[in-house]
Protein backbone atom coordinates (compact mmCIF):
# COMPACT_ATOMS: atom_id res chain seq x y z
CA UNK A 1 0.00 0.00 0.00
CA UNK A 2 1.39 3.44 -0.92
CA UNK A 3 1.97 5.84 2.00
CA UNK A 4 0.25 8.73 0.25
CA UNK A 5 -2.32 8.63 -2.51
CA UNK A 6 -3.81 11.72 -4.09
CA UNK A 7 -6.63 10.72 -6.37
CA UNK A 8 -8.16 12.97 -8.98
CA UNK A 9 -8.44 16.16 -6.90
CA UNK A 10 -9.80 19.55 -7.96
CA UNK A 11 -8.78 22.50 -5.77
CA UNK A 12 -10.15 26.03 -5.92
CA UNK A 13 -9.21 29.41 -4.44
CA UNK A 14 -12.57 31.12 -4.39
CA UNK A 15 -13.67 30.98 -8.01
CA UNK A 16 -10.25 30.22 -9.41
CA UNK A 17 -9.34 26.59 -9.98
CA UNK A 18 -5.70 25.82 -9.23
CA UNK A 19 -5.63 22.02 -9.61
CA UNK A 20 -7.51 19.93 -12.17
CA UNK A 21 -8.01 16.22 -11.55
CA UNK A 22 -4.52 15.65 -10.21
CA UNK A 23 -3.34 12.25 -8.97
CA UNK A 24 -0.13 11.26 -7.26
CA UNK A 25 1.24 8.25 -5.38
CA UNK A 26 4.27 7.81 -3.12
CA UNK A 27 5.54 4.60 -1.59
CA UNK A 28 7.02 4.76 1.89
CA UNK A 29 10.70 5.72 1.83
CA UNK A 30 10.55 7.16 -1.68
CA UNK A 31 11.56 10.68 -2.65
CA UNK A 32 9.29 12.31 -5.19
CA UNK A 33 9.99 15.67 -6.78
CA UNK A 34 7.11 17.73 -8.14
CA UNK A 35 8.38 20.32 -10.59
CA UNK A 36 6.67 22.99 -12.60
CA UNK A 37 6.63 26.70 -13.36
CA UNK A 38 5.10 29.40 -11.19
CA UNK A 39 1.37 28.87 -10.82
CA UNK A 40 1.48 25.23 -11.89
CA UNK A 41 -0.30 24.25 -8.67
CA UNK A 42 2.67 22.77 -6.81
CA UNK A 43 2.21 24.69 -3.55
CA UNK A 44 -1.54 24.17 -3.68
CA UNK A 45 -0.90 20.44 -3.92
CA UNK A 46 1.28 20.48 -0.80
CA UNK A 47 -1.22 22.68 1.05
CA UNK A 48 -3.96 20.21 0.18
CA UNK A 49 -1.92 17.32 1.57
CA UNK A 50 -1.15 19.29 4.74
CA UNK A 51 -4.79 20.35 5.10
CA UNK A 52 -4.55 24.10 4.50
CA UNK A 53 -6.60 23.74 1.31
CA UNK A 54 -9.42 21.30 0.84
CA UNK A 55 -10.12 19.65 -2.49
CA UNK A 56 -13.59 20.18 -3.90
CA UNK A 57 -13.57 16.70 -5.41
CA UNK A 58 -11.30 13.68 -5.26
CA UNK A 59 -9.64 11.97 -2.34
CA UNK A 60 -6.42 12.17 -0.38
CA UNK A 61 -5.44 8.98 1.46
CA UNK A 62 -2.61 8.67 3.95
CA UNK A 63 -1.62 5.18 5.03
CA UNK A 64 -4.82 3.98 3.37
CA UNK A 65 -7.11 6.30 5.35
CA UNK A 66 -9.07 9.11 3.74
CA UNK A 67 -7.88 12.40 5.29
CA UNK A 68 -9.84 14.99 3.28
CA UNK A 69 -11.75 16.14 6.35
CA UNK A 70 -8.92 15.96 8.88
CA UNK A 71 -7.93 19.52 9.96
CA UNK A 72 -4.25 20.47 9.48
CA UNK A 73 -3.32 20.28 13.16
CA UNK A 74 -4.55 16.66 13.30
CA UNK A 75 -2.53 15.63 10.27
CA UNK A 76 0.75 16.33 12.07
CA UNK A 77 0.20 13.56 14.65
CA UNK A 78 -0.50 11.20 11.73
CA UNK A 79 3.00 11.92 10.47
CA UNK A 80 2.56 14.64 7.84
CA UNK A 81 4.83 17.69 8.11
CA UNK A 82 5.03 20.62 5.71
CA UNK A 83 7.87 23.10 5.38
CA UNK A 84 5.81 25.89 3.86
CA UNK A 85 6.68 28.20 1.02
CA UNK A 86 8.38 31.31 2.40
CA UNK A 87 9.56 29.22 5.40
CA UNK A 88 7.16 30.94 7.82
CA UNK A 89 9.56 30.91 10.76
CA UNK A 90 7.90 32.38 13.89
CA UNK A 91 9.59 35.79 14.00
CA UNK A 92 9.33 36.50 17.73
CA UNK A 93 10.63 33.07 18.76
CA UNK A 94 14.27 32.07 18.78
CA UNK A 95 15.35 29.45 16.26
CA UNK A 96 15.52 26.87 19.04
CA UNK A 97 12.02 27.81 20.21
CA UNK A 98 10.87 27.40 16.61
CA UNK A 99 12.22 23.86 16.69
CA UNK A 100 10.58 23.15 20.04
CA UNK A 101 7.22 24.29 18.69
CA UNK A 102 7.74 21.77 15.89
CA UNK A 103 7.70 19.02 18.53
CA UNK A 104 4.20 20.05 19.64
CA UNK A 105 2.59 16.81 18.42
CA UNK A 106 5.01 14.78 20.58
CA UNK A 107 5.70 12.10 17.94
CA UNK A 108 8.79 10.21 19.00
CA UNK A 109 11.59 9.14 16.70
CA UNK A 110 15.12 9.79 15.60
CA UNK A 111 14.86 13.56 15.41
CA UNK A 112 15.35 15.81 18.42
CA UNK A 113 17.32 18.98 19.11
CA UNK A 114 20.62 17.11 19.39
CA UNK A 115 20.32 15.06 16.19
CA UNK A 116 19.06 18.07 14.24
CA UNK A 117 21.91 20.31 15.40
CA UNK A 118 24.17 17.50 14.22
CA UNK A 119 22.54 17.45 10.79
CA UNK A 120 22.26 21.24 10.47
CA UNK A 121 25.41 22.54 12.16
CA UNK A 122 24.65 26.14 11.21
CA UNK A 123 21.56 26.01 13.44
CA UNK A 124 23.52 24.94 16.49
CA UNK A 125 25.50 28.19 16.43
CA UNK A 126 22.45 30.38 15.87
CA UNK A 127 19.89 28.70 18.09
CA UNK A 128 19.35 31.74 20.29
CA UNK A 129 18.83 34.11 17.40
CA UNK A 130 15.29 35.45 16.96
CA UNK A 131 13.52 34.11 13.90
CA UNK A 132 13.10 37.60 12.51
CA UNK A 133 16.86 38.23 12.70
CA UNK A 134 17.93 34.97 11.05
CA UNK A 135 19.26 34.90 7.48
CA UNK A 136 17.31 33.24 4.68
CA UNK A 137 19.48 30.12 4.83
CA UNK A 138 19.19 29.88 8.61
CA UNK A 139 15.44 30.30 8.36
CA UNK A 140 15.19 27.58 5.71
CA UNK A 141 17.30 25.16 7.72
CA UNK A 142 15.24 25.95 10.82
CA UNK A 143 12.00 25.46 8.90
CA UNK A 144 13.07 21.98 7.76
CA UNK A 145 14.40 21.09 11.19
CA UNK A 146 11.17 22.37 12.77
CA UNK A 147 9.14 20.08 10.53
CA UNK A 148 11.43 17.13 11.37
CA UNK A 149 10.90 17.71 15.10
CA UNK A 150 7.50 16.05 14.62
CA UNK A 151 9.33 12.94 13.31
CA UNK A 152 7.07 12.77 10.26
CA UNK A 153 6.51 9.75 8.07
CA UNK A 154 6.31 12.12 5.12
CA UNK A 155 8.11 15.44 4.83
CA UNK A 156 6.69 17.97 2.37
CA UNK A 157 9.27 20.53 1.24
CA UNK A 158 7.98 23.59 -0.60
CA UNK A 159 10.45 25.60 -2.70
CA UNK A 160 13.48 25.10 -0.49
CA UNK A 161 15.79 26.87 -2.93
CA UNK A 162 13.65 29.97 -3.42
CA UNK A 163 15.57 33.17 -2.78
CA UNK A 164 18.70 31.44 -1.49
CA UNK A 165 22.24 31.59 -2.82
CA UNK A 166 23.28 28.39 -4.68
CA UNK A 167 25.89 27.53 -2.08
CA UNK A 168 23.28 27.74 0.67
CA UNK A 169 20.86 25.61 -1.34
CA UNK A 170 23.61 23.03 -1.74
CA UNK A 171 24.27 23.10 1.99
CA UNK A 172 20.61 22.55 2.86
CA UNK A 173 20.06 19.78 0.31
CA UNK A 174 23.13 18.01 1.65
CA UNK A 175 21.02 17.17 4.70
CA UNK A 176 18.47 15.29 2.62
CA UNK A 177 20.26 11.90 2.55
CA UNK A 178 20.36 11.89 6.35
CA UNK A 179 16.59 12.44 6.38
CA UNK A 180 15.87 9.75 3.79
CA UNK A 181 18.16 7.38 5.66
CA UNK A 182 15.70 7.43 8.56
CA UNK A 183 13.08 5.95 6.28
CA UNK A 184 11.29 9.25 5.88
CA UNK A 185 9.28 9.71 2.71
CA UNK A 186 10.00 13.07 1.08
CA UNK A 187 7.90 15.08 -1.34
CA UNK A 188 9.89 17.97 -2.76
CA UNK A 189 8.37 20.82 -4.71
CA UNK A 190 10.97 22.70 -6.73
CA UNK A 191 11.36 25.21 -9.51
CA UNK A 192 15.04 24.33 -9.61
CA UNK A 193 14.82 21.29 -11.91
CA UNK A 194 18.46 20.24 -11.57
CA UNK A 195 18.24 20.10 -7.81
CA UNK A 196 14.98 18.18 -8.01
CA UNK A 197 16.40 15.60 -10.43
CA UNK A 198 19.45 15.11 -8.28
CA UNK A 199 17.65 14.24 -5.04
CA UNK A 200 14.60 12.31 -6.22
CA UNK A 201 13.68 8.77 -7.16
CA UNK A 202 10.84 9.99 -9.34
CA UNK A 203 9.80 13.27 -10.91
CA UNK A 204 6.30 14.52 -11.67
CA UNK A 205 5.90 17.69 -13.71
CA UNK A 206 2.82 19.92 -13.39
CA UNK A 207 1.50 22.47 -15.83
CA UNK A 208 -1.58 24.60 -15.12
CA UNK A 209 -2.73 22.28 -12.36
CA UNK A 210 -2.38 19.02 -14.30
CA UNK A 211 0.31 16.34 -14.51
CA UNK A 212 2.03 16.51 -17.89
CA UNK A 213 5.02 14.23 -17.38
CA UNK A 214 6.29 11.71 -14.87
CA UNK A 215 9.08 9.18 -14.58
CA UNK A 216 12.48 8.40 -13.15
CA UNK A 217 15.05 11.17 -13.51
CA UNK A 218 17.36 8.86 -15.44
CA UNK A 219 14.66 8.07 -18.00
CA UNK A 220 13.65 11.66 -18.74
CA UNK A 221 15.54 13.76 -21.27
CA UNK A 222 16.09 17.46 -20.65
CA UNK A 223 14.13 18.27 -23.78
CA UNK A 224 11.05 16.38 -22.64
CA UNK A 225 11.21 18.06 -19.23
CA UNK A 226 11.67 21.50 -20.74
CA UNK A 227 8.70 21.07 -23.05
CA UNK A 228 6.53 19.72 -20.21
CA UNK A 229 7.69 22.48 -17.88
CA UNK A 230 6.79 25.31 -20.22
CA UNK A 231 3.95 23.61 -22.05
CA UNK A 232 5.57 23.94 -25.48
Amino acid at each position, binding site marked *: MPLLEVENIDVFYGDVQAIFGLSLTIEEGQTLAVIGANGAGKSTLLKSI*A*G*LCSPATGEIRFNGERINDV*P*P*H*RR*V*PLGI*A*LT*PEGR*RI*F*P*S*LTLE*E*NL*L*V*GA*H*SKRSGHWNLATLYDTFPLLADRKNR*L*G*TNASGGEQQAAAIA*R*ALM*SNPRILLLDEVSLGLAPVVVEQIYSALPAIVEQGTTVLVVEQDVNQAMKVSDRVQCLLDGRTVLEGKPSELSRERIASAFFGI
Partner: protein
Amino acid sequence: MQWANAIVQGVILGGLYALLAAGLSLMFGVMRLVNLAHGALAIVAAYMGMVLVNKTGIPPFATLLIVVPVMALVGWVLQRTLLNTALNRQALAPILVTFGLAVILQNLMLELFTADNQSIDVGSLAGASIQITPDIAVGVFPLITFVVGVFVIAALQLYLAKTTTGRAMRATSDDREAAQLMGIDHRHIYALATAIAVGLVGLAGVFLGVRTQFNPTFGDVTLIFAFEAVIIGGLGSLWGTLWGGIILGVAQVVGAQAFPSSGVLLGHIVFLLVLAFRPTGLFPKVVNG
Protein backbone atom coordinates in the same frame (compact mmCIF):
# COMPACT_ATOMS: atom_id res chain seq x y z
CA MET B 1 5.42 65.33 51.56
CA GLN B 2 1.85 65.16 50.37
CA TRP B 3 3.24 64.85 46.84
CA ALA B 4 5.43 61.93 47.84
CA ASN B 5 2.39 60.34 49.40
CA ALA B 6 0.39 60.92 46.22
CA ILE B 7 3.09 59.24 44.15
CA VAL B 8 3.21 56.23 46.47
CA GLN B 9 -0.59 55.90 46.41
CA GLY B 10 -0.55 56.28 42.62
CA VAL B 11 2.02 53.53 42.17
CA ILE B 12 -0.06 51.24 44.33
CA LEU B 13 -3.23 52.06 42.41
CA GLY B 14 -1.25 51.25 39.26
CA GLY B 15 -0.90 47.66 40.45
CA LEU B 16 -4.69 47.30 40.28
CA TYR B 17 -4.74 48.79 36.79
CA ALA B 18 -2.03 46.40 35.64
CA LEU B 19 -4.02 43.52 37.08
CA LEU B 20 -7.08 44.72 35.18
CA ALA B 21 -5.07 45.21 31.99
CA ALA B 22 -3.19 41.89 31.94
CA GLY B 23 -6.07 39.93 30.39
CA LEU B 24 -6.80 42.59 27.77
CA SER B 25 -3.13 42.58 26.83
CA LEU B 26 -2.98 38.77 26.64
CA MET B 27 -6.05 38.42 24.41
CA PHE B 28 -4.82 41.08 22.05
CA GLY B 29 -1.35 39.59 22.02
CA VAL B 30 -2.47 36.07 21.19
CA MET B 31 -5.31 36.67 18.74
CA ARG B 32 -5.42 40.41 17.96
CA LEU B 33 -8.83 40.53 19.57
CA VAL B 34 -9.81 43.58 21.60
CA ASN B 35 -12.39 42.46 24.11
CA LEU B 36 -14.72 45.40 24.67
CA ALA B 37 -16.59 43.35 27.29
CA HIS B 38 -13.44 43.20 29.42
CA GLY B 39 -14.59 45.88 31.88
CA ALA B 40 -18.10 44.48 32.15
CA LEU B 41 -16.65 41.04 32.94
CA ALA B 42 -14.58 42.57 35.77
CA ILE B 43 -17.75 44.00 37.28
CA VAL B 44 -19.52 40.65 36.88
CA ALA B 45 -16.71 39.16 38.98
CA ALA B 46 -17.05 41.93 41.56
CA TYR B 47 -20.77 41.20 41.96
CA MET B 48 -20.02 37.49 42.11
CA GLY B 49 -17.57 38.13 44.96
CA MET B 50 -20.04 40.39 46.73
CA VAL B 51 -22.90 37.88 46.53
CA LEU B 52 -20.64 35.09 47.81
CA VAL B 53 -19.49 37.17 50.78
CA ASN B 54 -23.00 38.36 51.62
CA LYS B 55 -24.82 35.06 51.14
CA THR B 56 -22.32 32.53 52.45
CA GLY B 57 -20.21 34.64 54.77
CA ILE B 58 -16.97 33.15 53.45
CA PRO B 59 -13.95 35.46 53.70
CA PRO B 60 -13.48 37.75 50.67
CA PHE B 61 -10.15 36.19 49.69
CA ALA B 62 -11.75 32.73 49.70
CA THR B 63 -14.24 33.89 47.06
CA LEU B 64 -11.32 33.98 44.63
CA LEU B 65 -11.22 30.18 44.77
CA ILE B 66 -14.70 30.18 43.25
CA VAL B 67 -14.76 33.39 41.20
CA VAL B 68 -11.49 32.86 39.31
CA PRO B 69 -12.24 29.30 38.08
CA VAL B 70 -15.83 30.22 37.21
CA MET B 71 -14.68 33.27 35.23
CA ALA B 72 -12.00 31.19 33.50
CA LEU B 73 -14.69 28.70 32.48
CA VAL B 74 -16.85 31.59 31.25
CA GLY B 75 -13.90 32.80 29.17
CA TRP B 76 -13.29 29.36 27.72
CA VAL B 77 -16.94 28.89 26.74
CA LEU B 78 -17.13 32.44 25.36
CA GLN B 79 -14.17 31.81 23.10
CA ARG B 80 -15.32 28.40 21.90
CA THR B 81 -18.78 29.70 21.06
CA LEU B 82 -19.03 33.41 20.27
CA LEU B 83 -15.51 34.66 19.77
CA ASN B 84 -14.04 31.92 17.57
CA THR B 85 -17.10 32.33 15.35
CA ALA B 86 -16.66 36.11 15.32
CA LEU B 87 -12.98 35.80 14.39
CA ASN B 88 -14.01 33.81 11.29
CA ARG B 89 -16.41 36.55 10.13
CA GLN B 90 -15.62 39.97 8.64
CA ALA B 91 -12.99 42.13 10.32
CA LEU B 92 -15.47 44.22 12.33
CA ALA B 93 -17.31 41.23 13.84
CA PRO B 94 -15.17 40.72 17.00
CA ILE B 95 -15.45 44.41 17.94
CA LEU B 96 -19.21 44.48 17.35
CA VAL B 97 -19.79 41.20 19.17
CA THR B 98 -17.76 42.09 22.26
CA PHE B 99 -19.37 45.52 22.45
CA GLY B 100 -22.79 43.87 22.21
CA LEU B 101 -21.71 41.51 24.98
CA ALA B 102 -20.70 44.47 27.17
CA VAL B 103 -24.14 46.03 26.68
CA ILE B 104 -25.85 42.74 27.55
CA LEU B 105 -23.79 42.16 30.71
CA GLN B 106 -24.17 45.72 31.93
CA ASN B 107 -27.93 45.71 31.55
CA LEU B 108 -28.30 42.26 33.06
CA MET B 109 -26.43 43.51 36.12
CA LEU B 110 -28.68 46.58 36.23
CA GLU B 111 -31.72 44.30 36.33
CA LEU B 112 -30.22 42.02 38.98
CA PHE B 113 -28.46 44.50 41.25
CA THR B 114 -29.93 47.95 40.42
CA ALA B 115 -27.74 50.97 39.73
CA ASP B 116 -26.85 51.45 43.42
CA ASN B 117 -23.22 51.54 44.46
CA GLN B 118 -21.96 48.38 46.16
CA SER B 119 -18.70 47.11 47.54
CA ILE B 120 -17.24 43.88 48.90
CA ASP B 121 -16.85 44.03 52.68
CA VAL B 122 -13.45 42.92 53.95
CA GLY B 123 -14.06 43.95 57.55
CA SER B 124 -11.13 45.41 59.46
CA LEU B 125 -8.73 44.94 56.55
CA ALA B 126 -10.47 47.81 54.75
CA GLY B 127 -9.09 50.39 57.17
CA ALA B 128 -5.76 48.77 58.01
CA SER B 129 -2.64 50.61 56.95
CA ILE B 130 1.10 50.65 57.44
CA GLN B 131 2.80 53.90 58.45
CA ILE B 132 5.96 54.24 56.35
CA THR B 133 6.98 57.78 57.26
CA PRO B 134 5.02 60.25 59.40
CA ASP B 135 3.36 61.51 56.21
CA ILE B 136 3.04 58.36 54.16
CA ALA B 137 0.73 55.53 55.08
CA VAL B 138 -0.04 52.63 52.78
CA GLY B 139 -3.30 50.73 53.04
CA VAL B 140 -2.72 47.02 53.63
CA PHE B 141 -5.33 45.93 51.12
CA PRO B 142 -4.11 48.24 48.31
CA LEU B 143 -0.59 46.95 49.01
CA ILE B 144 -1.77 43.34 48.68
CA THR B 145 -3.45 44.29 45.40
CA PHE B 146 -0.22 45.83 44.12
CA VAL B 147 1.82 42.78 45.06
CA VAL B 148 -0.72 40.47 43.40
CA GLY B 149 -0.63 42.66 40.29
CA VAL B 150 3.15 42.45 40.01
CA PHE B 151 3.04 38.72 40.72
CA VAL B 152 0.41 38.09 38.04
CA ILE B 153 2.37 40.01 35.40
CA ALA B 154 5.56 38.13 36.31
CA ALA B 155 3.81 34.76 36.30
CA LEU B 156 2.14 35.42 32.95
CA GLN B 157 5.43 36.53 31.47
CA LEU B 158 7.11 33.39 32.73
CA TYR B 159 4.27 31.21 31.46
CA LEU B 160 4.55 32.65 27.96
CA ALA B 161 8.34 32.51 27.92
CA LYS B 162 9.03 29.11 29.43
CA THR B 163 6.15 26.67 29.07
CA THR B 164 5.24 24.57 26.06
CA THR B 165 1.74 26.04 25.92
CA GLY B 166 3.06 29.57 26.36
CA ARG B 167 5.41 29.00 23.45
CA ALA B 168 2.53 27.64 21.37
CA MET B 169 0.57 30.81 22.20
CA ARG B 170 3.40 33.02 20.99
CA ALA B 171 3.80 30.92 17.85
CA THR B 172 0.05 31.13 17.13
CA SER B 173 0.20 34.88 17.66
CA ASP B 174 3.07 35.17 15.15
CA ASP B 175 1.57 33.01 12.41
CA ARG B 176 -1.65 31.10 12.96
CA GLU B 177 -1.41 28.99 9.83
CA ALA B 178 2.21 27.99 10.41
CA ALA B 179 1.24 27.05 13.98
CA GLN B 180 -1.43 24.72 12.60
CA LEU B 181 1.29 23.06 10.55
CA MET B 182 3.07 22.32 13.82
CA GLY B 183 0.00 20.47 15.06
CA ILE B 184 -1.30 23.36 17.15
CA ASP B 185 -5.09 23.73 17.30
CA HIS B 186 -5.44 27.52 17.29
CA ARG B 187 -9.04 27.36 18.52
CA HIS B 188 -7.84 25.50 21.60
CA ILE B 189 -4.98 27.96 22.14
CA TYR B 190 -7.41 30.88 21.79
CA ALA B 191 -9.83 29.32 24.27
CA LEU B 192 -6.99 28.77 26.71
CA ALA B 193 -5.79 32.38 26.36
CA THR B 194 -9.29 33.72 26.90
CA ALA B 195 -9.80 31.41 29.89
CA ILE B 196 -6.61 32.79 31.46
CA ALA B 197 -7.54 36.37 30.52
CA VAL B 198 -11.07 36.18 31.91
CA GLY B 199 -9.86 34.30 34.99
CA LEU B 200 -7.47 37.18 35.61
CA VAL B 201 -10.32 39.62 35.03
CA GLY B 202 -12.16 37.72 37.75
CA LEU B 203 -9.23 38.15 40.12
CA ALA B 204 -8.94 41.84 39.25
CA GLY B 205 -12.69 42.36 39.56
CA VAL B 206 -12.81 41.06 43.13
CA PHE B 207 -9.89 43.28 44.15
CA LEU B 208 -11.60 46.21 42.45
CA GLY B 209 -14.83 45.46 44.27
CA VAL B 210 -13.06 45.55 47.63
CA ARG B 211 -11.10 48.67 46.88
CA THR B 212 -13.82 50.89 45.44
CA GLN B 213 -17.55 51.25 45.25
CA PHE B 214 -18.93 49.88 42.00
CA ASN B 215 -22.15 49.66 40.03
CA PRO B 216 -23.08 47.99 36.73
CA THR B 217 -21.89 50.93 34.61
CA PHE B 218 -18.47 50.82 36.24
CA GLY B 219 -17.32 48.41 33.53
CA ASP B 220 -16.90 51.34 31.13
CA VAL B 221 -14.17 53.13 33.07
CA THR B 222 -12.63 49.79 34.00
CA LEU B 223 -12.19 48.96 30.31
CA ILE B 224 -10.87 52.44 29.58
CA PHE B 225 -8.29 52.39 32.41
CA ALA B 226 -7.10 48.92 31.46
CA PHE B 227 -6.81 50.00 27.84
CA GLU B 228 -4.86 53.13 28.79
CA ALA B 229 -2.43 51.05 30.83
CA VAL B 230 -1.86 48.75 27.82
CA ILE B 231 -1.29 51.60 25.36
CA ILE B 232 0.89 53.70 27.68
CA GLY B 233 3.04 50.64 28.32
CA GLY B 234 3.24 49.60 24.68
CA LEU B 235 1.38 46.84 22.85
CA GLY B 236 2.62 43.32 23.29
CA SER B 237 4.70 43.97 26.40
CA LEU B 238 3.41 42.69 29.74
CA TRP B 239 6.03 44.49 31.80
CA GLY B 240 5.12 47.57 29.78
CA THR B 241 1.51 47.06 30.87
CA LEU B 242 2.62 47.08 34.52
CA TRP B 243 4.52 50.33 33.98
CA GLY B 244 1.57 51.72 32.03
CA GLY B 245 -0.72 50.94 34.96
CA ILE B 246 1.67 52.61 37.39
CA ILE B 247 2.03 55.73 35.24
CA LEU B 248 -1.74 55.97 34.88
CA GLY B 249 -2.23 55.50 38.63
CA VAL B 250 0.35 58.16 39.50
CA ALA B 251 -1.12 60.59 36.96
CA GLN B 252 -4.59 60.15 38.45
CA VAL B 253 -3.61 60.45 42.12
CA VAL B 254 -1.10 63.25 41.67
CA GLY B 255 -3.54 64.96 39.32
CA ALA B 256 -6.29 64.77 41.91
CA GLN B 257 -3.90 66.22 44.48
CA ALA B 258 -3.25 69.20 42.20
CA PHE B 259 -6.76 69.65 40.84
CA PRO B 260 -9.35 67.94 43.05
CA SER B 261 -12.05 66.21 40.97
CA SER B 262 -9.87 66.20 37.85
CA GLY B 263 -7.70 63.16 38.60
CA VAL B 264 -9.33 60.91 36.00
CA LEU B 265 -9.15 63.65 33.37
CA LEU B 266 -5.41 64.08 33.99
CA GLY B 267 -4.95 60.34 33.63
CA HIS B 268 -6.65 60.55 30.22
CA ILE B 269 -4.47 63.48 29.26
CA VAL B 270 -1.28 61.57 30.08
CA PHE B 271 -2.63 58.76 27.90
CA LEU B 272 -3.35 61.17 25.03
CA LEU B 273 0.12 62.70 25.36
CA VAL B 274 1.70 59.26 25.06
CA LEU B 275 -0.52 58.57 22.07
CA ALA B 276 0.53 61.85 20.46
CA PHE B 277 4.26 61.63 21.07
CA ARG B 278 5.05 57.93 21.62
CA PRO B 279 2.24 56.04 19.85
CA THR B 280 4.08 52.72 20.27
CA GLY B 281 3.98 53.19 24.04
CA LEU B 282 6.76 53.90 26.47
CA PHE B 283 8.00 50.32 26.75
CA PRO B 284 7.39 48.77 23.35
CA LYS B 285 8.46 45.24 22.56
CA VAL B 286 11.00 45.03 19.77
CA VAL B 287 9.25 42.19 18.00
CA ASN B 288 5.51 41.87 17.64
CA GLY B 289 4.26 39.05 19.74
